[in-house]
């Protein structure tokens, strides 16, 4: 076991200081995407398709253009002609042509809610009236929603230029199956034929939304001289810049994107929807334009996590050692390719050693909004099936569920499904912590059941830039380009304070716009505390070196004769030996000893490590109503080292709650016409505080040796195990296994009464 360094080794890391952005957020002063106002700003509105699939014969905009107050109307034809370009969009890759078509349709609409035209006017009422005056002549086409229906010969085809990737030879006919990923090893059929226990089944779910509270919103201003600005809420201002600039054919230096506060993203705000459209309207109108989505727009037109159909056969020998996994899943891609089935394949059995495997993942397009990332994208769906099968094997063999997982858990040095060996991971430590937790051995009452599931997510590093500057009074400013979604202002300040050996309160963090600091990748992939943190630590370390050099110049000694101790320069030899100079004293003299003290670090952070989690869930199933109540929930996670434990616990609790919602309530409901029947929080039921017990977060610290303070990403893996943990608890409470999510009262009631 990798024992964490003792807590007393740190001054600031591991403490729980007050968040620096808290006052603005609780007093309503913080400015989010829909709040921003620019002088002379116009109000925008978007006309969306009522059809799931239709060819656009014509769009009539003259009536709308003539209405009082209307300053601009835009359609997909206003985008410049751009060539296919596969580029990084968030953390995955998409063709920028598809991204543009998703922002404003060109020849076809591919889902209900697909944007068709946009208007900018002097008031929101005028803009809303104007889009009603736009006429669209549609040739309605047959649509397809189901995964296997979309893969059938003769199914309505969304694109005539999408061919299945990942198959050989390359297909000569377009397909809705946009990607296939296959990993095979050993002899799966022989392994399962000889297994002492085999669990098999088909698991299904519809797409679910990230459910961020703040809708998408932006203001764009494109000047006559070609320079432009966008103010928006996103997970990455640089990603907004690169996508919009590519779509509109402008230089990235001509576009300045300012990140506003973000009211939740969870992967869903790595994409652009409104920003390019607001830019087009602004260029036409010559004024800033604001576009904001309604909640219905968010549900109908932004990317949810994919729904899935998953077939699993999992086999173990009599001792509970897994011998084979045969898994094939199909994930909804929605209207455009860009989802990566690879992550689902990797995460399916990545937390176990399984000698024989056939893992097949499909990405399948259909007439729904294009799927986007949602915390550990692609992992929770297949994990639901695999961890349910693990529970069935435990029951078949009479082995404790934790013991079964311990017998198969990956350890440092074991190969991942990609062949890359695991580093200092802590899955075994999580399982042991779960086994030792009082929750695991607590008694249960009638109609109650306890479920357990483990899970894995790869995490990421990537490029980040950070600046650290010393002010004239010795306080410290840190500037990054990573939007603060989960408390990164605090964690960046804490790592800078730790490195500089100063109090946390002496450090303030700013999230800069794209013109004020160098590139940083999106806030996603559980990467910011790890990667941007590395940049902050590197810049702060440079500042320490500079502070020592400046003190040496002031004292007239060699830099090697100065140490940095307790946030002060200490002369270690010569006539000044033992003298100390505070940070404030060095800062006050800096102008006369070499100039301002500041450093920037720009790096592509390597050495990230995966996250592992084990969740325990107790439920009670009401036989009269089918309602499932979560009674107790414990989430154990290897967090590397928690910089700010409150925030880490918050990530664990938030991910667990979102996963519980996915398991019990949340689902997209489409009708026969391909229209979404529940585009609002009244009918799309997310859990609220009164639905849930306190989520107990248990942090297991197995530090990452490739980060100065041991950081691992923590934001995504907590959503991986809950689906199966809840389902396994329901299976044990109800005595029947349900394989279709959500485990809504009607399904549970039917299952209970079918026993």
């Amino acid at each position: 076991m990798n024992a964490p360094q003792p807590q007393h080794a740190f001054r600031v890391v591991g403490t729980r200081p007050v968040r620096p952005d808290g006052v603005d957020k609780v007093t309503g002063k913080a400015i989010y995407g829909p709040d921003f106002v620019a002088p002379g700003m116009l109000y925008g509105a978007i006309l969306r398709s009522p059809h799931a699939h239709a060819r656009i014969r014509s769009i009539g905009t003259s009536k709308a253009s003539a209405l009082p107050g209307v300053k601009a109307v835009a359609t997909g034809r206003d985008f410049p002609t751009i060539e296919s370009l596969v580029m990084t969009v968030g953390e995955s890759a998409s063709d920028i042509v598809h991204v543009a078509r998703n922002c404003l349709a060109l020849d076809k609409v591919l889902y209900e809610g697909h944007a068709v035209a946009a208007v900018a006017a002097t008031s929101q009422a005028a803009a809303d009236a104007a889009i009603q005056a736009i006429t669209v002549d549609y040739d309605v086409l047959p649509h397809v929603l189901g995964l296997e229906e979309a893969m059938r010969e003769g199914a309505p085809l969304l694109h005539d230029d999408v061919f299945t990737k990942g198959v050989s030879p390359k297909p000569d006919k377009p397909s809705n199956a946009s990607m296939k990923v296959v990993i095979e090893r050993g002899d799966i059929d022989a392994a399962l034929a000889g297994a002492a226990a085999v669990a098999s089944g088909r698991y299904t779910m519809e797409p679910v939304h990230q459910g961020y509270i703040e809708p998408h919103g932006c203001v764009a201003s494109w000047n006559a001289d070609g320079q432009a600005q966008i103010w928006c809420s996103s997970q990455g201002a640089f990603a907004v810049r690169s996508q919009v600039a590519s779509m509109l054919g402008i230089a990235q230096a001509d576009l300045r994107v300012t990140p506003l506060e973000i009211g939740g993203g969870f992967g869903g705000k790595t994409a652009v929807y409104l920003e390019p459209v607001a830019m087009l309207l602004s260029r036409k109108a010559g004024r800033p334009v604001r576009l904001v989505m309604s909640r219905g727009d968010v549900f109908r037109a932004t990317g949810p996590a994919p729904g899935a159909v998953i077939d699993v056969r999992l086999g173990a020998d009599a001792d509970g050692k897994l011998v084979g996994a045969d898994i094939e899943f199909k994930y909804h891609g929605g209207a455009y390719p860009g989802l990566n089935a690879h992550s689902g394949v990797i995460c399916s059995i990545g937390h176990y050693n399984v000698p024989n495997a056939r893992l097949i993942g499909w990405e399948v397009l259909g007439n729904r909004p294009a799927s986007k990332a949602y915390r550990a994208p692609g992992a929770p769906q297949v994990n639901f099936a695999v961890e349910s099968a693990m529970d069935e094997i435990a029951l078949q063999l009479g082995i404790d569920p934790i013991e079964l997982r311990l017998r198969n858990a990956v350890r440092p040095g074991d190969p991942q499904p990609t062949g890359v060996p695991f580093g200092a991971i802590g899955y075994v430590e999580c399982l042991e912590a779960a086994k030792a937790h009082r929750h695991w051995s607590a008694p249960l009452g009638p109609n109650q059941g306890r479920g357990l599931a483990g899970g894995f997510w790869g995490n990421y590093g990537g490029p980040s830039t950070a600046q650290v500057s010393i002010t004239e009074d010795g306080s410290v400013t840190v500037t990054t380009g990573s939007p603060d979604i989960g408390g990164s202002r605090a964690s960046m300040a804490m790592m800078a304070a730790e490195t500089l050996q100063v109090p946390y309160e002496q450090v303030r963090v700013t999230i800069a716009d794209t013109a004020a600091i160098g590139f940083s990748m999106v806030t996603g992939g559980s990467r910011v505390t790890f990667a941007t943190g590395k940049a902050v630590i590197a810049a702060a370390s440079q500042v320490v070196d500079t502070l020592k050099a400046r003190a040496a110049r002031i004292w007239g000694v060699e830099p090697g004769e100065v140490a940095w101790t307790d946030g002060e320069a200490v002369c270690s030899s010569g006539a000044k030996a033992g003298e100390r100079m505070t940070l404030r004293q060095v800062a006050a003299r800096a102008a006369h000893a070499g100039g301002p003290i500041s450093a920037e670090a720009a790096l592509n952070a390597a050495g990230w490590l995966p996250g592992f989690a084990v969740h325990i869930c107790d439920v009670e199933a009401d036989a009269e109503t089918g309602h499932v109540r979560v009674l107790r929930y414990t989430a154990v996670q290897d967090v590397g080292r928690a910089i700010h434990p409150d925030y880490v616990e918050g990530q664990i609790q938030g991910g667990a709650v979102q996963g519980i919602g996915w398991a019990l309530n949340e689902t997209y409901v489409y009708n026969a016409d391909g229209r979404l029947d529940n585009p609002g929080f009244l009918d799309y039921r997310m859990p609220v505080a009164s639905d849930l017990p306190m989520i107990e977060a248990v942090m297991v610290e197995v530090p990452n040796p490739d980060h100065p303070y041991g950081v691992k990403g923590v934001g995504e893996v907590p959503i991986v195990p809950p689906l199966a943990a809840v389902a396994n608890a329901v299976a044990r409470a109800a005595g029947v296994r349900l394989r279709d999510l959500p485990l809504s009262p009607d399904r549970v009631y039917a299952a209970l009464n079918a026993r």
Partner: protein
Amino acid sequence: MRIVVMPPFDREFFGGDRLDMDATNLFDLVARLDARAPGFATIAEARAAFAIDGVFAPDWSLPLADACEVIVLPRVGGG
């Protein structure tokens, strides 16, 4: 040097998952892979990741002279 190509790139570009070729660094390797399967270089920046002897290598300038194996795999998205 052994090149292990993970799906979907194995079937999408190379028709197999094992290649043998030498390269000075990953930039050079991408160029050589592109020569074998035109189009790979175009998507490599956005879609591909590399591991050199079991270690992820975001720095494509690392020398490969002493490397035994490079794994070519998809970049995994995050949320």
